[in-house]
Structure formats: C-alpha cells, structure tokens
C-alpha cells in the first residue's frame, strides 16, 4: 500500500474537487427545480431524488462503461485515472446536493422570492439572496456531498482500479488492507479517513452554526 500521507492527499484532492464541481452543478440544478415553473419539473425532481439513493457501484459501473476504451468517452483515456474518479464522485454527490438544495429552497417562506422581486431584485439577485437565506441547509448539502464522495468505495474501485502510486485512495486502501488480512494498516487508514472527514465537516459546521444564529428568533 502507498504511504498514508500520499493516499490521504489523493483522497482529499479527488473528493474536494468532486464536491466543488458537484456544488457548482447541484445548487443551480436544485434551484431551478425549486423555483422554475417549467413543464417536466416534477419528473426531473423525482429523477434527482432517485439519484440520491443510487448505489455507488452502479455509478462506478456506468462511468466505467462510458470511459472504457471502447465506450463513447474512451478516447479521453480517463479510465483508471484520478480525473475519472472525480467524474464518478461528481455523479454521486450532485443528486444529493441538488436534492437538498431543492428541499431547502422549497422550505423557505413561500412568498419570499416574490417579495424580493417585488422590491426590485433582478432574478440573479433574488436567487443569491435565497441561497443566503438557505445557507444552513446548503452547507449541510456540501457536507453530505463531501461525505458521500470521500466515503464511497465502489466507484473508486471500479473507475480508479486501486493502482498503487496512481489511484489508490483511502477507502480502496482500507479494502485492500482487509483483503490481505492486514487489519492494523486498514485501521490506520480508517482512522486517518475519519480525521479528514472530521476536519472538513468541523470547518463547514462552524460556518453553518454561525449562520444559523441569524435565523433564530
């Protein structure tokens, strides 16, 4: 197995990148599903909610089929690369973030958006204000997205291949340790993974709780 520091850095880079990309896609998508009065909104919302429950191995399989040498995106040579793993984790985290964003915006007072428009906000200004109003659940969405990405093993194994020195991440290293009967190494990786998750979530929680004090009566 690779040194812990190297694997930790790889895990952090892949999962944080995937979370940031998923936020960039998921928040606007969830906002559109919550606010836009478009035909097909409900089926689209149902698809997003279903995406929240799709097993990560299924996502891994789907991405592998796309990225495989003979697949439609095979020419990009992303199979068994960190970029391929990022793509898989984006697909895992995006429905979660979009679903939570949609629910968070729908939980705001129903006429708040109209009030903002009625006071002269442009559509973009109104949406930014709504995001700020929903900042506590949106931070929860970021935490959930990151947690889902960093803890998944199925897609990382299928798409990354757990190649030493290249695509081994914390979760695949733990699986490999257990497979070899090296429980102490697996436990050490697990502890470090928990530490990474704790540090990121502690940071987000701190911001979240500071924000929530403004919304309390």
């Amino acid at each position: 197995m690779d040194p812990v520091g190297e694997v930790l850095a790889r895990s952090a880079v892949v999962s944080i990148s995937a979370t940031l990309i998923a936020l960039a896609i998921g928040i606007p998508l969830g906002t559109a599903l919550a606010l836009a009065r478009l035909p097909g909104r409900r089926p689209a919302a149902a698809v997003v909610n279903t995406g929240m429950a799709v097993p990560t191995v299924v996502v891994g399989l789907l991405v592998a089929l796309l990225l495989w040498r003979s697949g439609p995106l095979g020419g990009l040579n992303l199979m068994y690369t960190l970029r391929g793993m990022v793509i898989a984790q984006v697909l895992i985290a995006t429905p979660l973030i979009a679903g939570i964003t949609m629910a968070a915006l729908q939980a705001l007072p129903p006429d708040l958006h109209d009030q903002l428009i009625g006071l002269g906000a442009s559509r973009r200004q109104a949406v930014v204000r709504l995001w700020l109003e929903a900042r506590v659940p949106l931070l929860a969405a970021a935490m959930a997205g990151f947690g889902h990405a960093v803890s998944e093993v199925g897609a990382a194994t299928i798409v990354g291949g757990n190649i030493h020195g290249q695509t081994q991440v914390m979760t695949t290293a733990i699986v490999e340790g257990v497979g070899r009967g090296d429980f102490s190494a697996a436990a050490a990786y697990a502890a470090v993974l928990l530490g990474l998750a704790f540090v990121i979530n502690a940071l987000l929680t701190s911001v979240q709780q500071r924000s929530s004090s403004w919304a309390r009566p």
Partner: protein
Amino acid sequence: MGAALTLREVRQRRGGREVLRIDALDLGAGERLAVLGPNGAGKTTLLRLLAAIDMPTAGTVLVDGVRPTPGAVALRRRIAYATQRPGLLSTTVRRNVELPLGWRGVPRPQRRAAAAAALERFGVAHLADRRAAALSAGEAQRVNLARALALAPSLLLLDEPAAALDAEARQAFLSDVERALGESTTTVVHVSHRPEEAFWLADRVAALADGVIRQLATPETLLREPADPTVARVVGYENVLEAEIGPAGAVAVGGWTTGLRATGHGPAIVAVWAGGVHLRPTGSDGIPAWVERVTPGPGRWEVALAGTLPLRAHVPLSASPPRAGEPVVVVLDPALATVVASPRHASCVRAAPASSACSPS
C-alpha cells in the same frame, strides 16, 4: 412622481379557472386606490400582476404606458410591493431596509441615511441593529413598510399590511402609513378585506368579488350606494335583504312594510347597518322577530335575530340587553339603510374607469 396605471381586458387563469377579470381600470398618477374584497376575491392576484411577479393570461397591464415584465428591471425598480407576510431576510433590520436600495445602485452613505429615515418614520429606528427574526409581528410589519417606502417608489403596492395586527396596533400602524405617505405623489394600490382599513388611505375603492370589480367609487359612494348585494356585504353591511318596492315607493321585506321608501318599482335589495336595526317591545309597529343570541361586543350588545328575517342588531352596552328567545319587534332606521334597485345589481359586472357604480348592460 407617481405612476399611472392602465388595465384593459385583463384575464388571469389559474388551475383552469378564471381568477381575475378586469375589463378596464385606470388610475391616475398619485392616486390612492383601495381594493376591497373577501379572501379569494383576487386581490393579491391583481397586485402580483402590477408587480410583474405574474403575467396576465390575457389583456394589458401598463405602468406609465410600459408593460411590467419580470425582465423589465428598471420599471420594476419604480415599484415597491409589500407582501402580506413581511418576508424579512435573516439579517439585521437595517440591512433589510438597505438591501433593495443597494440593488438600485444607491451609494452606501445615502442607503444608510434613507434606511435610517424610513425606520424613524415608522418608529422602529431603535431596532435597526436587531436581527429581523427577533421582531414581533407588528415590528416586522413596520420594518416591511419602512423598507418599501425607503425606495420612494412611483407605485406602492400594499397587500393587507395590517392583517396580522390587533385593532389598536392596526390604528396606530395605519396612522403611521398615512403620515409616511404624507404629501408624496406615490401612486398606491392597497388591498384589504377590512373596509375600515381600505377606506383609510383611499381616494377610490374597488369592490372586488370573484375576480370581478363590482363597483369602483369613492368610499362615501360605496357606503351610501352599494351597487349590488355583494358590494353591500363587502363594504360591511351586516344585513342585506331581498326586498320589493311597491307602486307608491314603499319598500317591503319578507312581506312586511319596512317604513323605507325608494324610487322605482319591483325587486330590490335593502342593506342595513346593524346599528340601524332597532328593537322594540312586542305590540309596537314593525317586523316581528325573536332573539336568537346576544353577545357582548365593543361598546355594544351584538344581537342575532331569527324569525321572518335573519338580522343582526346592535344595542348600546349601557342598555339592558334582550334575552335569548325573547320576542321583539324590529324597526329599520332609514338613516342607516339603503335600498338598491334590482336592475343595477343584476348586471353589475364591469368596472368603468371613473364610474361611481356599475352600469346596467
């Protein structure tokens, strides 16, 4: 400078149902219109069209000759819409008032000054640094109005701003709104289901029911000459009765002579304030009835009568109230009653721009 409003052949449908139907409505710059109607009459629907939050299914809405649309941000920024629920953001009171000024590109020092002045006008300057979430309903509504008026809008849209307030707070709040508007030329459209609230600020009042303006008139005309039974109920008449005008002009209700007189002949409607229904002992001249229920009200006993006519009467609190089940004789006070001839109310479905009543079709 206030904005002029023009509505022509406006239709709004929702869920396959027509919820608003206004053939014509014109409002001059600086005019104050109250829209009075029961819940579900279409009042908020009208405001949402004027605020460009919704677009009409058909017809034309013009603000100073320009169609308000969600994309017409420059026009929308001449309009301020205060929703029924204050919709304050989870930040400080001051920031809530300053934010819409910021959207308009007002520099920070001017924003501060305008917000401070608006909060001062509504007596909530001391709350400027408080979190909006910590305000009471009354305080939040004052901040909501301060936020709208700080924008010095050409068109101010008020959706039942005092609905959540108790009677005493409502009076004080409306006085503050009146003072804040002062001599301003802002055009105001204020919707309410409470007549006393609607009449407070209005030059003219539109009585709205089932999405249709039934009558557009001054508050006085609306009270003295309601165009139809619906309008009579909307403006607050507690008793609206089917009647018949006899050949000599005598008005009868339920076959009983009322002592009221009217011109015309045939079916009519009698609208009587509860204060105009006087109770006399049995044996007197009048309409026989019996007391169904007596409840204490503000400065009066509120009496529900049954019998030939279901009526509501007010008896001064200082007088001894009748007992439930007691037979009485009812006399209608001509000074507190109005007779509406049937042809007018039968066809009163259109609102002409400056008419005082609906015209027969």
